[in-house]
């Protein structure tokens, strides 16, 4: 399915990442946004608020992030594509509802424009400290998808992808921006609507009597209906059977929860996305995501100039993590260097997959600013020497 041309501002624009994310959402068919102001994400909802009246959308500024993160889920069951937007403190408040969306298989998008934490931290300064929270933040086991854009252009493109993935797998998708990407202004090219691929919601269309809301047919993802369609659906955050009815038994738990995990795990090869640059034959691979991918480039180029064989693997989809690729590389490279604007989160995943077969070096930073490329260069140099 192609995008609705009504919402698509085809052309070349000079946009910051936040605004570009808003345009991506509109192009993706999102017509319900609930949010609460928080730096540095507020520009996303501000643009939504000014654009929605012209594209038939509903924006509501809720009383807090908790309300926002569940209002969007009401809207999804009412038939809309929906997202909410926040930053660290708000993201923390939303955790329970990420779990609800995972449990009830409600497709929706959570945008987190990361700032330095913990707590109120540095509200106007960048960080990447919410990466593990995006994966594990809600209690219990569930699968999740998270994306990490590194430019305003990607804020557009990947927001559409976030919506598409959420519909395809009926899962909440975390859109992990950061303050730098959110406030960075660059050229953003918005293609014509007929070149934007949209994954529509998979609605059940068979006989009403046969419908079981949480029955799957092989692909681990059940078909949806919406309120008002006459199915008398019941949706609950309690452990539920295929009818959607609470069934608080071990067998039901053993059937439902692994499916919620496996629908992402088993489809990971299809979901995973990364960009590689000179990884084949590299002795050192720098693993980056979001803004660190850009601060790493001068360091990588300098190292290459000096003759070091340095590859760059940039995560576009952060969760699920590209386990297979990292494992494969681990037996061939000397070291992985992982710069991130936190004191060690995604590096744990790299270490897990490398499993001792190569060195793994964190270039950590608690946030507030971006890395000095020199710091990354120094670690690359040290790692290349072995």
């Amino acid at each position, binding site marked *: 399915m192609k995008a609705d041309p009504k919402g698509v501002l085809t052309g070349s624009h000079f946009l910051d990442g936040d605004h570009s994310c808003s345009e991506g959402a509109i192009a993706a068919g999102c017509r*319900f946004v*609930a949010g609460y102001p928080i730096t540095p994400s507020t520009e996303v909802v501000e643009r939504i608020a000014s654009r929605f*009246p*012209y594209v*038939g*959308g*509903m924006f*509501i500024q*809720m*009383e*807090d992030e*908790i*309300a*926002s993160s*569940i*209002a*969007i*889920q*009401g*809207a*999804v*069951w*009412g*038939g*809309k594509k*929906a997202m909410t937007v926040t930053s660290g403190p708000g993201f923390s408040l939303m955790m*329970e*509802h990420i779990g*609800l969306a995972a449990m009830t298989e409600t497709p929706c998008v959570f945008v987190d424009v990361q700032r330095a934490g913990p707590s109120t931290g540095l509200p106007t300064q960048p960080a990447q400290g919410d990466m593990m929270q995006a994966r594990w933040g809600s209690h219990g086991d569930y699968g999740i998808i998270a994306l990490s854009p590194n430019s305003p252009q990607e804020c557009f493109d990947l927001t559409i992808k976030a919506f598409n993935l959420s519909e395809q797998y009926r899962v909440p998708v975390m859109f992990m921006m950061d303050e730098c990407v959110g406030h960075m202004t660059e050229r953003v090219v918005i293609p014509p609507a007929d070149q934007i691929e949209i994954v529509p919601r998979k609605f059940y269309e068979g006989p009403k009597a046969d419908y079981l809301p949480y029955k799957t047919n092989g692909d681990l993802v059940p078909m949806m209906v*919406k*309120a*008002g*369609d*006459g*199915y*008398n*659906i*019941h*949706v*609950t*955050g*309690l452990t539920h059977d295929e009818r959607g*009815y*609470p069934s608080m038994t071990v067998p039901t738990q053993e059937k439902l929860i692994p499916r919620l995990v496996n629908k992402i795990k088993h489809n990971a090869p299809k979901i995973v996305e990364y960009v590689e640059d000179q990884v084949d034959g590299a002795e050192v691979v720098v693993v980056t995501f979001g803004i660190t991918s850009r601060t790493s480039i001068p360091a990588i180029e300098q190292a290459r100039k000096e003759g070091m064989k340095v590859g760059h693997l940039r995560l576009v989809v952060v969760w699920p993590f590209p386990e297979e690729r990292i494992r494969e590389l681990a037996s061939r490279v000397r070291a992985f260097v992982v710069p991130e604007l936190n004191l060690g989160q995604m590096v744990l995943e790299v270490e897990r997959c490398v499993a001792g077969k190569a060195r793994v070096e964190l270039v950590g930073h608690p946030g507030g600013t971006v890395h000095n490329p020199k710091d990354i260069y120094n670690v690359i140099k040290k790692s290349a020497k072995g």
Partner: protein
Amino acid sequence: MAEELFEIEESVPVNTVESFLRMERMPHIWCPGCGIGTTVNCFAHALETSGLDLQKVSVVSGIGCTGRVAGYINLDSFHTTHGRAIPFATGLKLANPELKVIVYSGDGDLTAIGGNHFIHAARRNVDMTVILINNFTYGMTGGQVAPTTPLSATASTTPYGNYEQSFNLPYLAESCGAVYVARWTAFHVRHLTKAIKEALAKKGFSFVEVLAPCPTLYSRRNKIGDGLDQMIYYKDNSEIRNGADTKTIPLEFQGKIVVGKFVDKERPTYLDAMNEFYQQKLGEDYIPYKG
């Protein structure tokens, strides 16, 4: 002649309440003498005579004993997180304004953890009916003190009695802008049915508080008998005072209970206000939002 008129039919009519329930889920979880099931009867009868297209009716609950209502109602129903039924309902209603959205939940859920959402939905006048079952306690977790527990009443977390002032919910709802506010008890089944029917017919944020016995965790702990004793208490100590100033009707421990319809007024709903405002501001460029 009279004899013939009252001849018993061979086939008895079915209990209409059952068509509104997921009977395969019975028996329900509520204790003997709990009043929640009683309110569900009234709700079902109100729906039955409301003239609403039942396919377009959704029930949203939070967590707790009353939070289980959504699971028993045979309509589109959503059992959400603790305290968040109202913001979920807000999203549902605004996504599809054709839906009639009813929030059915308890006092702890809607006015403690969900208090913020309650006041804002009333302020915005989001078009929904909120049926709040007030049993003065958190039943499901074992009878802890709630924002509705009357002064001096005992709860598991106020073992020597409650010293916090409780909410006067009709006053709260009215202050925040609800367009319909009523209070009844589980004893007043006919009045309650009528009130719910009126609330359903009302455009905007309508609110019905229903006092209901929690024999297991409120009445027994407070030595005021069982469910039936509470119902008799409601019967003997309620005063119907329609139009009462909501300021004057707080609830006290085993005090007089003022019931009735207190507020019934008109105010633009959130959606109507938005559409009207944008039409004025943006003119023809604005296409009124219809979902």
